[in-house]
């Protein structure tokens, strides 16, 4: 076992990290930081329920060892999304479109949607489907989730 000591920014706040280097980021977020919004559906990268954004990229935190994230890493979880304008728009659109059922996949879906809209503020339906393809949902059949992302995108402030 090796232990790491790092400083990251999680949801905009500076966090001192001390953990076994091989600890899964998901466990660190949920158990050490109490950020239990990210869920574990499989523990092997397939379901996307644990998706968080690391330095701008969506990743599955269940197969990411914390040691690989250097000082200064910025992490955004579902708990931090609310503070972002696009994030709030996505959350609202999910509620309005009825995109939520049991809710277990939803934090991951919201995070993946946010990552998608940050890169591509006007995604086609195909691009939305691709952006969400790493997030399994067993309840909704995805249709209303895709609608919600489209709706959120349409409400994003225009960027120059």
């Amino acid at each position, binding site marked *: *076992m*090796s232990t*790491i000591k790092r400083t990251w920014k999680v949801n905009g706040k500076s966090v001192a990290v001390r953990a*076994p*280097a*091989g*600890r*899964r980021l998901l*466990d660190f977020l949920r158990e050490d930081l109490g950020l239990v919004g990210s869920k574990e559906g499989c*523990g*092997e*990268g*397939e379901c*996307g329920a644990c*998706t968080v954004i690391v330095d701008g*990229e*969506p*990743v*599955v935190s*269940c*197969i*990411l*060892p914390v*040691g*690989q994230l*250097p000082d200064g890493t910025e992490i955004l979880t579902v708990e931090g999304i609310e503070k972002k304008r696009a994030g709030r728009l996505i959350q609202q659109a999910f509620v309005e479109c009825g995109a939520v059922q049991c809710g277990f996949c939803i934090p991951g879906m919201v995070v*993946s949607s946010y*990552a*998608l809209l940050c890169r591509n503020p006007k995604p086609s339906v195909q691009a939305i489907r*691709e*952006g969400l*393809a*790493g*997030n*399994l949902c067993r309840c909704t059949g995805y249709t209303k989730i895709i609608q919600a992302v489209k709706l959120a995108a349409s409400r994003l402030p225009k960027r120059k």
Partner: protein
Amino acid sequence: MKTTEKIDIRFPKTLAEALRLQAREETRGKLLAGGTDLMVQWASGVPAPGRATSIWNLPELSSIEIFPGHVEIGAGVTHAFLCDCPQIRAHVPALVAAAATVGAKQIQARGTLGGNAANASPAGDTAPALLVTGGSVVLASLSGTREIPLSQFWTAYRQIAARPDEIIVAFRLPQKGKARERFRKIGTRRAQAISKVMAASRILVEKGIIQSAAIALGSVAPTPVRLGAVESFLAGKSLSPAVIDEAERLAQATVQPIADIRSSAEYRRWASGRLVRDALENL
């Protein structure tokens, strides 16, 4: 404590430092790049090693360079980075297409080309596309670097031709030039899917005559394979329906796939020929 927490992971800052660690058995660790294969294996019961050497984000492994006639892609380049690099697409389009089918966005953001190749799964998506370039792998160790042709890289089921003290640093891939490339994967579903069968090809046709053909398949043998018999049959032929039929038949006669959870041997054999047809019909 979960098994991966027990691993002693080292985080070298440079390739040289990593090579030093790997040189001696006492400090050598399992190479850990994006971890998208390894972390899953360890979670699903494969015993975790005592030590690992993280090569994620090593600057020496992370670049894409374009030279006259060939490209050099660092082993640490992620599938996402590969897909986002517009210049590379013109030179090795099948490889980019393959990278785009690995898992989904989250996996592409972490999975690396080196990890995909070194993991040596017969279903590794990028392997056939790498093979048809006729390129090579650059391996480094404390004693220097060496280059081995990709055609000799995958030696047996989940075996590669690298020594334990070596790290894959890059892939040196000839550009396709005037040839056409194609990649097609038959997966278990449209995304987040391991292949049942897949094919990559690089074929040069001039004045209706096939000058050269490189065709490789994945998931039909213990390693990714080039279809030598089909390739030599095609060389010098004109692209006629009869030639395509024969190429399909030859491919089906050549491969010896097995049945597993994802597909049957019969389907894989048939589909191997079909994907060869697909490559030839879409030139």
